[in-house]
């Protein structure tokens, strides 16, 4: 009961959706769209579980005075403040006007955006340190990786005089030829792996996600 019904549901819904793909008729499309809505709505309900987990972990940190517990207070404050602003302090539960609340927008523009953009921009540094650390001519494979990356990075460097244009052409050759071949092979392999995994789920061979008992 606790495992059979879920496995049956996976099988039925899975097979149905596979065949749905080959039926262009309106009624089949309607069901497809309805199901996608289901998934979306289930996902939103599940967010409550996520938020509960976040609150509980933070609360435990504060309660048991775990290391850095002070910061958990900031997390909770940020969470509740944002929810409060988003409902316009409770004035707009069922209309989207809360989204235009001044504080809600200010928090978005001046806290979320700068921090996220800055996290993203850390890549400028990490791409440099990763290149320094890992691009060593240790083996033939590592050397291929290193040389190919160097050529592409040098493609617009003006300090190579007459060989500059050749460097640029080589770089575009590397991007358009071996890179394309590598990508195509990986895509085909991934496609087959995905189909195999999805079939395993539908057939109930892969069932780790259902848990036990």
């Amino acid at each position, binding site marked *: 009961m606790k495992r059979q019904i879920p496995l049956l549901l996976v099988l039925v819904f899975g097979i149905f959706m596979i065949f749905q793909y080959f039926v262009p008729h309106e009624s089949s499309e309607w069901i497809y769209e309805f199901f996608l809505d289901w998934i979306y709505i289930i996902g939103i309900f599940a967010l409550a579980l996520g938020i509960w987990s976040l609150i509980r972990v933070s609360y435990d940190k504060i309660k048991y005075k775990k290391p850095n517990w002070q910061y958990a207070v900031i997390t909770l404050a940020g969470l509740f403040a944002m929810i409060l602003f988003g409902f316009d302090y409770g004035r707009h539960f069922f209309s989207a006007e809360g989204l235009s609340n001044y504080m809600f927008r200010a928090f978005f523009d001046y806290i979320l955006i700068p921090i996220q953009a800055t996290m993203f921009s850390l890549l*400028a540094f990490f791409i*440099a340190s990763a*290149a320094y650390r890992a691009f060593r*001519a*240790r083996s033939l494979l590592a050397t291929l990786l290193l040389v190919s990356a160097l050529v592409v990075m040098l493609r617009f460097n*003006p300090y190579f005089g007459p060989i*500059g244009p050749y460097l640029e052409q080589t770089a575009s050759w590397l991007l358009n030829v071996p890179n394309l071949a590598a990508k195509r092979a990986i895509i085909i392999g991934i496609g087959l792996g995905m189909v195999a995994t999805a079939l395993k789920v539908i057939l109930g061979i892969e069932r780790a996600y259902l848990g036990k008992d």
Partner: protein
Amino acid sequence: MNIFDRMMSLDRRWVFLFVALVCVITYLIPFSIKINITPEVKSIYDHVESLKAGDYILLAIDYDPNALAELHPMTYAIAEQAFRKELKVIFVTLSQNGPGMADQAIRDISDSLRLEKTYNGITYPARQLINGKDYVFLGYKPYPALVILGMGQNFRLPFPSDYYGTPLDSIPMMKGVLNYDQIKCVIDFAAGNVADMWISYGQGRYNFPLALGMTGVMGADYYPYLNSGQVFGLMGGLLGAAQYESLADNPGPAIDGMRIQLYAHIVIILFILMGNIGFLVTRRKKQV
């Protein structure tokens, strides 16, 4: 620990520091760098340079704010060059958010023209751009393919009046200018498939010289048209824009951007080389 070991196992914070310093310094201190010029960009510059005062060119501003960083520098450099040479410029846009882009470009370039400037050793006097005498901005119309075809018959068909509402017939510089036959070249700055339409419906049908400025991602796909001679020049991305700025001796945001990129790349490459020298030397020592 000798110097080679040190070269291999540098604290990565030195890498961070150098990258940050180089970016900040190259950002703060403007200086020009040498840019490799490719023939497909140079041919656009040469074409514009070969025109005489009073010749007409058409600039199509077919991009919106998303592609501004890459395409605006091209528009600025070419329009500045054209106006300094006293060419007459017709602006048109086939992209929905294009009018804002064109409007901004025209305003900024008129400001810049009010100053006396020297490009490639030639000093150009300050001049006041006059709408309708030096340039005309036709505005935006949907259905790019039909607009391109229609302009081949007569500009007045898709655009009876310009962007500001003046009938084309009462604009002095449009007198006797009917269609592409009176235009010396069309340069399309495109961030979408409008470029294809300029190639097949414009150049393909009316056979005028066409050059393209595109985003970096798109650029590579259009080289076949260059080989087949359908377009006489091609600029791709910030790199293409920087080449044009450098040809026109008019350093702007594209060269600024390239300068930062270039030196950041050089720093990274130097670190990679340093790591490898250290690695190779220490390995040889171990083998001995």
